[in-house]
């Protein structure tokens, strides 16, 4: 007989160290996988995790990829902390991109300092409105937000598809499924000549700070925390549950929208079908790896961004598919959940003959 018991108390230090353990286990398992594929494990890992960031360009790329992941995960942490399972950040990102991109196209060839802020604002509002759909359906019709938010991802992706192929496609673009390149006034400024790292990183860092203040220092953050731990208590304390569901979805959607608009006005510079390599889904892993804590999320986003880069270099140097990156992301989540389970529960082996009531 095996019995699983809840542990009484888990230490805070270990709580924040288990993600490190999960990453270590991922590396070990990754090494084994590479070995079985016929590579020298250490060398392969080096190609995967060291080579990509061994020069300035690599580091800049790391931050370019970490920026949207961090932003989205920050937003998601509001939802997840309060027991709202928003799985559709990818859709909110896409919709934010569509709305922001629409405004950018509207101001095509316009000069003016106001263009970029307007686009960014439009993107945030777009993502926010798109996230309000599952929230409102949950509040008034008791629908499951997991399903609704997930299904909306495909709606926004198909809408983007339609727009870049149809009405918004570049008139001089030889029917390629993409819009015009945005004009210079609609682009986020590049921080260093020759590198792709752009001003979006400041938006992400500012949101980290803001999220930290809201979650740990305000009444709103306290309400989010209590609702996440016990909805019964939140109700008893008289927190406005419905308003809060709407609010956390709006925050989450706005962050995802910002990430989307940051991508199209930053490194991409136009709308096309693939404005996000599934940042919205990967950010779920980032949020949990970072323990839904703003500071933790910063580190987690860097690590997960590295798996994107590693996959690209591995593709070049080792001739393995770029999906190896997703294998690593999957392993991180798996080991994190497994070590969490052991962190919160203990397994007792009771021998074979024991009876249990």
């Amino acid at each position, binding site marked *: 007989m095996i019995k699983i018991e809840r542990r*009484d*108390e888990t230490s805070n230090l270990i709580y924040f160290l288990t993600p490190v353990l999960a990453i270590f286990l991922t590396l070990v398992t990754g090494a084994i996988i590479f070995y079985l594929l016929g590579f020298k494990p250490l060398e392969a890992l080096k190609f995967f995790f060291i080579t990509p960031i061994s020069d300035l360009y690599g580091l800049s790329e790391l931050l370019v990829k970490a920026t949207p992941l961090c932003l989205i995960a920050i937003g998601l942490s509001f939802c997840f902390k309060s027991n709202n399972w928003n799985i559709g950040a990818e859709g909110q990102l896409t919709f934010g991109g569509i709305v922001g991109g629409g405004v950018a196209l509207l101001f095509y060839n316009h000069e003016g300092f106001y263009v970029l802020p307007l686009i960014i604002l439009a993107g945030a509002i777009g993502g926010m409105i798109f996230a309000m759909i599952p929230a409102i359906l949950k509040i008034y019709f008791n629908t499951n937000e997991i399903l609704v938010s997930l299904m909306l991802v495909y709606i926004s992706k198909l809408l983007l598809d339609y727009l870049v192929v149809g009405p918004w496609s570049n008139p001089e673009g030889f029917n390629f499924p993409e819009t015009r390149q945005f004009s210079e006034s609609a682009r986020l400024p590049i921080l260093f000549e020759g590198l792709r790292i752009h001003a979006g990183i400041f938006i992400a860092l500012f949101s980290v700070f803001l999220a930290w203040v809201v979650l*740990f*220092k*305000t*009444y*709103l*953050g*306290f309400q989010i*925390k*209590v609702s996440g*731990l*016990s909805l*019964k*208590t939140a*109700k*008893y*304390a*008289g*927190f*406005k549950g419905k308003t809060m569901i709407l609010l956390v979805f709006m925050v989450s959607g706005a962050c995802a929208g910002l990430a989307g608009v940051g991508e199209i006005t930053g490194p991409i510079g136009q709308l096309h079908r693939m404005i996000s390599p599934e940042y919205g889904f990967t950010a779920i892993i980032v949020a949990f790896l970072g323990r839904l804590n703003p500071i933790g999320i910063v580190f987690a986003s860097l690590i997960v961004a590295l798996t994107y880069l590693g996959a690209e270099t591995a593709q070049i140097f080792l001739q393995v598919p770029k999906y190896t990156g997703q294998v690593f992301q999957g392993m991180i989540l798996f080991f994190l959940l497994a070590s969490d389970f052991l962190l919160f529960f203990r397994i007792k082996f009771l021998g074979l*003959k*024991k*009876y249990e*009531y």
Partner: protein
Amino acid sequence: MNTKLKVSKVSKIYPGCIANDNVSLNFQSGKIYALLGENGAGKSTLVKILSGVINPDKGQIFLNDKLLKLTSPKDAKNNNIGMVFQHFNLFETLSVFENLSIDNEKNNHQLRILINNILKKYNFKIDLDVPILNLSAGQKQKVEIVRCLIRNPKVLIMDEPTSVLTEQETEDLFLSLKKFSKEGILIIYITHKLKEVLSLCDEVAVMRKGKVVSISRTVDEELSSLANKMIGENLNKIKKIASNNLSGEEILKVSRLNFNSEDPYEVNLVDINFTLNKGECLGIAGISGNGQNELFQILSGETLSNNGSIKFRSKEISKLNPKERREYLMAFSPEDRISQAAVPSLKIYENVALNNFKTSNFFEKGLFNERKIKDHSKKILSNFSVNTDNVNLKSQFLSGGNLQKLILGRELITSPELLICFNPTWGLDVGAINYIHQTLVKINEQGKSIILISTNNDELLQLSDRISVINKGKLSKIMSAEEVNPEKLGLLMGGGLVD
């Protein structure tokens, strides 16, 4: 047949606590033995040792002078020791017969005859083919007892069996137990209810902090002597003085309140009407699951009823949520203190912040004012004698009594005009119960009003000025406490009519 059970020098030590300290007891068939003690006195540990669930660190158990080796509940069964636990171990969706046949080797036909004989002999009226979930608590308990009787027990151990029963069911149970005892079954009855000891048992062993502190015949004891032995200090008896400062000033008026739930497991409330005066305690009795939960939630504002009115000092409050009602100086102490009134994984001061007022300034301009909340929490801890002064302690580490003191303190420190509490002493030990009763009496004396929803009749009779009974979502006529007695309450609780 004569059965002798001997517990000899049994000790069981857990980290940080001695659950059983050198316990020696002798039991003999023909008598009913009470094992009396507060929560945490070591009764349950001893019972678990006797039923083989846990192994003692030291000591032996002898049945008829034969040393017993009890390493699993199966050993206890094979040695004819039967156990009825406080919480039923029955499969709700299976029929009575299926439940009884699960752990029995006999073939179904023989078993059915055997069970029918037992039912007939003791006049138990249970349909063997209905699912358990259709049975009342009393009937479920009878199924558990029958499960023991099938095995011809020499010893029958009952662990706090009446906590879920009505007065009537309790009397039934006592009759059956006396019958078993006459037939030579040795009965050990575990309880912390003093009255039951006196009315049912022949001998009583009192446990305190893991030790047996007294063994005596019940004829030599009375309520107060047992209570003193149990908690080891002289209880000052709470006597509610009939509130003479009743000004007749109306605090709360509930009229034509109906509640139809969409949830089939909830009880609908039907035409609830009552008024509550300043300084008064209105008790609401009833068997649990008759609408108390729904009534509490509607009074606290956790659920809103779509018709009827609730007026607090003639202001309509029926559409306000709990936080808004608190601003009107109402306070609430729900039944589920562990996971509703507080969050176990939050620290004490965070749990205190749950009760947030405009005037309490816990969150100035929306920011968490940690220092203010902590000072406020310290005040609660000391004013309400909670057994810690560490406001950073997670509330999961507080015992039931201390947690309830914290919650009541949190609700009362703002001096509300009305406290609505639901089973405030449920599962607590005598010391804590005593403290909470005193507190309730005190706030009544200060002219505050209380609605006390409780399933504990003694408590209701002790504290209430007026009492009503809730049955299937309906309130009975409200009676003044003097004209009510336990029998009357029992009758109303069971759905009967009085007068």
